[in-house]
């Protein structure tokens, strides 16, 4: 069996998630939870002068949600808040199927691997959960986000 969705990169991040664990001295955090499938993550960011110095996550869920969280932490290193929010917007629109990452110039890079999620409407929330948590943490609206 081979599936567009479960590519080796995703399976690898699921097995060995990067930047996984709580972050001491974080300046922003948000807990993301999907009660329907049990995906449950907390995203931590350390921001100095609008610049993201470090991002980590901890929690559990399906391979798509975990790989997405892991790859998100990598892609945010060194970005400023505006760039991170812009990347959230691109990622979100891509998984919803509103942005074709193949034919559009974006900052998504390796994250394009999640474009396949748009063919699985019930899994879009898995891919976007940690992104919503990061977005909410940086917007500082609340410290809890839920995707259903």
């Amino acid at each position, binding site marked *: 069996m081979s*599936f567009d969705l479960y590519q080796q990169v995703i*399976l690898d991040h*699921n*097995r060995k998630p990067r930047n996984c664990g709580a972050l001491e001295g974080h300046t922003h955090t948000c807990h993301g939870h999907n009660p329907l*499938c049990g995906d*449950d993550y907390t995203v931590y960011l350390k921001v100095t002068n609008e610049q993201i110095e470090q991002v980590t996550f901890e929690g559990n869920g*399906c*391979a798509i949600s975990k790989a997405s969280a892991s790859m998100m932490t990598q892609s945010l290193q060194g970005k400023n808040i505006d760039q991170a929010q812009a990347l959230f917007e691109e990622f979100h629109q891509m998984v919803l199927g509103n942005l074709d990452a193949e034919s559009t110039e974006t900052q998504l890079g390796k994250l394009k691997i999640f474009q396949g999620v748009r063919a699985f409407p019930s899994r879009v929330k898995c891919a976007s959960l940690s992104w919503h948590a990061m977005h909410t943490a940086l917007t500082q609206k609340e410290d809890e986000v839920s995707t259903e």
Partner: protein
Amino acid sequence: MTASTTTNDPLSVEEIRSDFPSLTVPMHGKPLVYLDSAATTLKPRPVLETIQEFYGHRYGTVRRAVYGLSEQATAAFERTRKTVTRFINAPTSRSIVFTKGTTESINLVASSWGKTHLRPGDEVLISAMEHHANIVPWQLACEATGAQLRILPMNSSGELLTEELDTLLNKRTRLVAVTGLSNALGTINPIQEICSRAHAQGSLVLIDAAQMAGHMAIDVQALDCDFLAFSGHKVFGPCGVGVLYGKPEILETMPPYQSGGDMIREVTFEKTTFADIPVRFEAGTPAIVEVIGLGSALEYIHSIGFEQIGAHEKDLLRYGTDLLEQIPKLRLIGTAAHKSSILAFILEDVHAHDIGTILDQAGIAIRAGHHCAQPTMKFFGVAATSRASLSIYNSREDLDALALAIDEVITLFRS
């Protein structure tokens, strides 16, 4: 795929399968392996034909008009009430209320019976393995009346600890609401014993038969249950229709659940008097054709017979259990000695939703999630399970395909 023999099968699966057009429609280019009948069953041709024939040629409103179409529709509608009466061996068709489904049936009892019969300090007992539809209505009824909700626990196989009834059942217990067959675990509960022990303490009993109704014969008089609820769409019938059985002498003590047309005797602007049971509980124009389609579904089940259905599903359950138990890192959730039609499992290191998505790509439809039984998931310490549920149209080949696909999931996640 492993070759399997079904020659000793007492039920002709091929013949049954040919009654279900959905099974001929490929999924992702693969033959459909439908293993989600606990969520909803596929529909056989006789039900589809009844619906089309009725909407197409015999449609009219019920219980209102004097013209022929309406009188014929009313007769067909009420014939279904008699079919349901026979299906669960109810004493009279006055005890059969048509609802939207099991959820509405239970809400009807929780709301109408609950608000008139529950008092502060009373207790309602449910089991640890209930579907949310048999938890939340009782929580709300208890909140509204000051009654207490008590929980009958289970063991790690998913069997109710009936010895706990000694202390949980007491003179404050007004109602025991319990599932006959767990949708998340497949456990067949000892509802006969629960009924007699509850009655000995003066408590009523409601059976959630949503899962049970398509798999096992139900005799409400032998059980002596006070209420029983099931849905049309889980017994090969249409969506949007269900049944509440209630002992007539109890239904008569209950006020209307909803109000409006059809359920009245006389309305003036000062006062309304209500219709007799069961119509008192059927406000508004009912799902006429769906009710008649349900009658057709129950006749379809009757034409096969529960003995045949039970033998076939028992064979499938044993065959599927053996196959899944051979898979390393797979743990069955729900291993009761007395079990039916459900194979719920978790795989070490692979989330249920990943399994569900990957199996779907192989044409295999299973359910992944909490199955509307979050307390059950919590008890077993899992966020979600994968669940293959069986019905009359499933074959051993379906289970071979399931086991093969799970093996491939494991290979994929190991690679």
